[in-house]
């Protein structure tokens, strides 16, 4: 049964038609035209679909879009446009923390969620590992990612 809803993404409202079982990931990709969140597994095991809902990192492949009505969704297109998200992206570039890039939007979103809840410079390696343990990257071996997140965490905000 198709219903209509308003999905707030990156500060803009999208009026979209959805089914009761439409996933947030599919709504973002195919209704809102924001393809940064990726379908890596569909089972919550890879983190490629990570976005934030009210600042919390979620696996958008496991969430129904209807649950997001009235909440604020952010994707990497939005968060890297300015502020700390832009700093994070910049540090990832400098650290060479991206290869194929399929994992990157999700990793940046998990990073932004972490930094939003920690004071500048306060995130320890353990915090970073915990925050990113759900994001698989098959290319980089993670060390440059760790490095980039450390630097972004220490950057002035």
């Amino acid at each position: 049964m198709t219903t209509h809803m308003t999905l707030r993404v990156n500060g803009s409202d999208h009026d979209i038609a959805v089914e009761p079982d439409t996933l947030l990931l599919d709504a973002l990709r195919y209704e809102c035209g924001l393809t940064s969140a990726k379908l890596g597994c569909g089972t919550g095991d890879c983190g490629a679909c990570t976005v934030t809902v009210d600042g919390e990192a979620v696996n958008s492949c496991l969430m129904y879009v209807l649950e997001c009505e009235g909440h604020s969704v952010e994707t990497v297109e939005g968060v890297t446009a300015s502020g700390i998200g832009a700093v994070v992206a910049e540090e990832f570039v400098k650290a060479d923390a991206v290869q194929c890039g399929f994992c990157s939007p999700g990793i940046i979103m998990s990073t932004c969620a972490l930094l939003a809840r920690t004071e500048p410079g306060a995130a320890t390696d353990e915090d970073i590992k915990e925050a990113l343990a759900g994001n698989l990257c098959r290319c980089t071996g993670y060390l440059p990612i760790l490095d980039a997140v450390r630097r972004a965490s220490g950057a002035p905000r």
Partner: protein
Amino acid sequence: MSAEESGPYLNVGNRLIRRDAAERLTGHTTYAEDIRLPGVLYGVLVPSLVAAGRLRGINVDRAVALDGVVKVLTAKDVTDRCYGNYVKDQPIFARDRVRFVGEPVAMVAATSLAIARRAAGLVEVDIEATTPVVDPREALTSAEVLVHDRDTNVIEDVHISRGDVDAVFDTAHAVVHTEIESHRAHQAYLEPRAVTAAPAPGGFSLIMSTQQPFGVRAQLAELFDLPTGTIEVRVPAIGGGFGGKLHLLFAPQAAAMTLATGRPVQIVCSRAEDMTTGNPRENSIVRMSSAVDESGRILARRCDVVLDAGAYAMDTPVLTSMAAFYATGPYRIDALDIRGRAVYTNTCPTGSFRGPSGPQMVYAAEAQIEDIAQQLGLDPAEVRRRNFIGEGDRGPTGELITLRGTTDECMRVVESRLQRWRQADVAPGDHRRRGYGLACAWWSTLGTPSAATVELHEDGTATLSSGGTEIGTGAISTALPSMVAEELGLRPDRVILKSGGTRDAPYDSGSRGSRTMFATGNAAVLAARAVAEQIRNEASRLLEVDPADLVLREGRVEVKGAPETGMTIAEVSASAHLHSGPVVATGRYRAELAPVEGSELQGARFLRLGEPTFHCHGVEIALDEETGRVDVLNFVAVHDVGRVVNPVGARGQVEGGVVQGIGYALTENLKTNDQGVIVNGNFHDYRLPTIADVPPNIETVFIETNHSHTGPFGAKGLGEPPVILPAAAIGSALRDVLGVQPYQLPLDADRVVLTIAERDSHPVPGPPGSTARPPEPEVEK
């Protein structure tokens, strides 16, 4: 500050920032699944649920009747030609027989993915199941259960012989036997395989996540009997491949559906589908014997390798030759009797995975070295040192080694790190035992063909057109334009890259075999040199000096020794356009083949290895003897890959490869049960390393004193080597702790516990090799 003002001209060897990084990080890069063409149909495949059986019938009526279903295809609707890189054994849809769980028997195309999935479930497939053969040992000898209509399951049988092996074995001081068995591992690229086919005049076009668009095009042209030029393969960004995207994937099925419906058709694998129908690294059995003298010098070697090809050959035939060629390790052995075989089984077909056959061959060859040392009471590093291959020696196929062998230099760096780690204090309360190990290897860079075009425009900027595939290493996106810029005396941002498929560039043999920087790079550099020559000729006319006296430097063409006499490259290019024609050239490259001598090869798919690279990895592990858990605490990776063009990208290749190698060694294991069903084909049960698992430090060291004679700027290939050594290094570290090492991979907790138990059940230490797996007296010949 723009690069125009600030960027250096000389960039080869400097830290290069990946050109496409920002776009990838901000979510603006397009991957195959992101492209949905107007009017696209969603394709879903109907898999066989049994590993072997006769296909009695398929009823598609209920699927066809579903609203939104446009077409259902089965074998009878498509060509009966088969496809395959080396052996044409794979049908588009199973015809008469099914051979593995997951093999496509039909395909549905519908207006939505949900409808296509529902319809696929309505296709009724009637299969009379037969007994599958899933074990390669059984497949090797079985005459009853045959996977294909042939009288044997053996599809490939390669022999290398050199010298009088029997005589050496008969008189040797000692004979040492090592036998190992290895498991399957999945490439587990983050982007599942995806392809969209669309109608095009006279043929079709594809948007595909592939490492090898030109190979895909050639094979599809043959399969559908179309002129090559009527097929276009476009490659958007690829979310990783590691060999898993070298094959046709589901392009034949998507193309068949497009040809049948006249509409675009997209197939995107689910992760489960991807993991159960991909081409994982093959499981294998390696038996190796060496005849040695008292000093540990290896005088002769016998080796028998069996690779499990799964249900279809894919590229296993060529991997069989590779496995055989790598049976010596980086050691000079003058008498060889090596046999490599591949067998069909009723399992998911296997194929290339970054460094194909490498991890298990290195594991076997290095375990053999350690066994030799243990049996003779020698230091394993010393045994290695006495056997390293070097310049002037001949490799296994009799190819002359024309580069210095630097494995010893690599190993010395590793030894110094192991020494330091051994001396470091262990945190109080940490009762795990420490082990230190190393492994050596050589590998070779694939020199298969490539062409690239460079055009210099009137404004002094250039376009590089390459059919190479940017798979995420930065070799195409960043290193190649930089090398072209260096040749032309331009800033790198003045060289614009055009790549991404078959349409806009000449042939390239794909992102594989560590070849891109080397072979695609050589083609680009040759094109740039030809363009530079055209510029020098034009400038020579304008400046009235000999072209040989002109250099291209910092955006100008200048007279050597008199830089004030010159013109900008833009001026010369504009002039050339008016007077002699456009400034454009295509470089073509194929590595020269080394002369071979002294070895006899039978059934090999190629005759020699490419230019060698040399490597050594060292590791410190912590072993919890109770649980069998191994943690990697420190890792050092030392590589001689000639000149390092981009140190940043190179380090990324090493670290990523090392972590994949650690995953292969410790946790990754794609398991197939006795019914041929893959039981952990998802990211929950197939354990990939996460950020929480990686060692705190992976030190990357390059030995840069041994430039290639033939690579661009002296570079050789690096993509694969980092992944082939970690398992062997960890095996050696386990031996350091336990006195024995497992002879079966992976080295997961269960295996380690078993190894300890088996060791403890032998009160008197037996000969090496007898601890975890009883040796056979002699390699089967």
